């Protein structure tokens, strides 16, 4: 497996306080990475940097062997797509228009979408179960429906790397599982990097965890190895018991303070 991201000596600070300090790691193709850690540890900032939304102060981020800053934005959009945390949409675009926006990097500024684009968008909407309201306005959808539309938009970008920033935070259990099932099914073609809060949910789907605390990467290992009581105590300052749950075929965690 080849490294898709190589991060060396990454530092990031907002005007006067440090957010990320000296992070070094490599991410491999075809894995599902979960970025976890307490509130304010810099998870989302790290994702912003990996996705090219923010630039680092110091350090190198190599994407497929080239510095991420050397990619033009429209090229990066063909490699990385992002499902952001709850997005407020103020204008009444139809669901299909939103999903089609994921195709923009492939369509010339003043061209119409081709038949291929329409077919692709159609099949994505079918997979993500939003076809029934394809021509409705997004402003009329519920939070969960809207999040699925935004997820479909990212899928329409058809990128090798998919990033999720707490993308399931406002979905009910049913759609959380459905959405993460879709994501992990696409793992044979995509690398997935997700910021998550729920350790148990992450344990079911991720292959590897990045545990962060105070802007530093503390542990990065496969889910089997990283889920132990010592690590969880170190990161979250809670006592934990880890057990294997055969009902869902995954390790799970229960905690107390």
């Amino acid at each position, binding site marked *: 497996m080849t490294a898709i991201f190589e991060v060396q000596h990454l530092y990031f600070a907002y005007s006067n306080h440090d957010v990320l300090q000296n992070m070094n790691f490599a991410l491999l193709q075809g894995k599902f990475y979960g970025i976890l850690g307490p509130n304010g540890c810099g998870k989302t900032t790290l994702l912003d940097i990996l996705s090219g939304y923010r630039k680092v102060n110091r350090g190198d981020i190599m994407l497929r062997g080239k510095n991420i800053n050397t990619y033009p934005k429209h090229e*990066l959009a063909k490699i990385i797509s992002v499902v952001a945390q709850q997005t407020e949409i103020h204008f009444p675009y139809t669901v299909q228009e939103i999903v089609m926006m994921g195709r923009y*990097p492939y369509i010339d500024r003043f061209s119409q979408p081709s038949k291929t684009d329409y077919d692709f968008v159609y099949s994505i909407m079918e997979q993500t179960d939003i076809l029934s309201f394809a021509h409705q306005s997004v402003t009329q959808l519920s939070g969960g429906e809207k999040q699925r539309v935004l997820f479909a938009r990212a899928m329409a970008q058809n990128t090798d790397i998919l990033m999720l920033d707490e993308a399931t935070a406002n979905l009910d259990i049913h759609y959380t599982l459905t959405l993460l099932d879709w994501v992990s099914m696409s793992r044979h073609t995509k690398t997935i990097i997700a910021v998550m809060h729920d350790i148990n949910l992450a344990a079911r789907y991720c292959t590897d965890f990045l545990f962060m605390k105070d802007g530093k990467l503390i542990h990065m290992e496969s889910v089997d190895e990283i889920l132990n009581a010592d690590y969880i105590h170190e990161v979250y300052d809670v006592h934990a018991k880890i057990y294997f749950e055969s009902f869902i075929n995954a390790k799970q965690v229960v905690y107390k303070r």
Partner: protein
Amino acid sequence: MFRSTLVMICVFSIILGLIILVSSGLGYISIPPFKVANIILSSIIQGKQAAKDIHSVVILDVRLPRILTSAIVGAGLSLSGTVFQGILLNPLADPYTLGVSAGAAFGAAIGFLIPFSDPVYSVPVFAFLGALCSLFMVIYLSSSDAGLSSNHLILSGIIVTSILSAAISFLKYLANEQVSVIIFWLMGSFVSKTWFEVNLTWITLCIGFMIVFWYARDLNLISLGAKTAVTTGVNTQRVTLILLITASLITAICVSVSGIIGFIGLLVPHMTRWITGPDNRRLIPMSMLFGAILLLCADTITRTVLPHDIPIGVFTALIGGPVFCYIFRQQMTIKN
């Protein structure tokens, strides 16, 4: 979808042309549209050699400049209204949200009060400078590490506007007998516009439209939030700044020519969105056409129907305000 937009643009361009013809004929001396077309055509073909009877003087030197200026300003205010609503992610933003109008008004008031200068030139120049200064003040106030956020922009706009309003009141207080001139200017008017204003606004509008239309698709993505826009290939920072400055310059030119005309930039994009949907590639050209038609009709009504030539800004606000209330209420009831 794209073809139907083109058809709509053509149809409404023709309608606009017809309205220009008809309204050129209306007024104190009424001239049939056929004769108007004849006069305009012969002046285009023969240039300045065309025969100058009273009708052609009225049409070419008096009415047409005013009519064209009002149509162009209508299109310009609608264009920048659309841009502001798109960038500020707020369907209720308008060209004046960022304090451009207050800046222009302040500049104009200074232009009136400066001794030994001809207000005909000093007022538009100072109005333009005032609009620019307030714009850059607002951008400076709202820029931070994370770039320009729409909330910061709106808030800074309010702050700058309220400071300038106080300054304008102070200038009015100092102005004594000239206060009525300032007040009249602030209410907006197309009276006695010349071909100079037509050319100025037309060139501004054309350049502005080309810039905005180039970024129309990026503006669609910006409405999904900065993160999504950036990771879909838009340089959000740069596009926002370019569009902000372009739209503000268009507004500043319009204001310096015509005074402050409210509600066009707010109402027109809002209503056009019902017809074209929110996709900016359709919305921008259509709202320009609607804006041109609307402001031209409004100006024609004040010019020909109403007993006094009342200020156009007052007229649009008196009509536009209640219409907007109605629309706003309608939308709330539909949503619930």
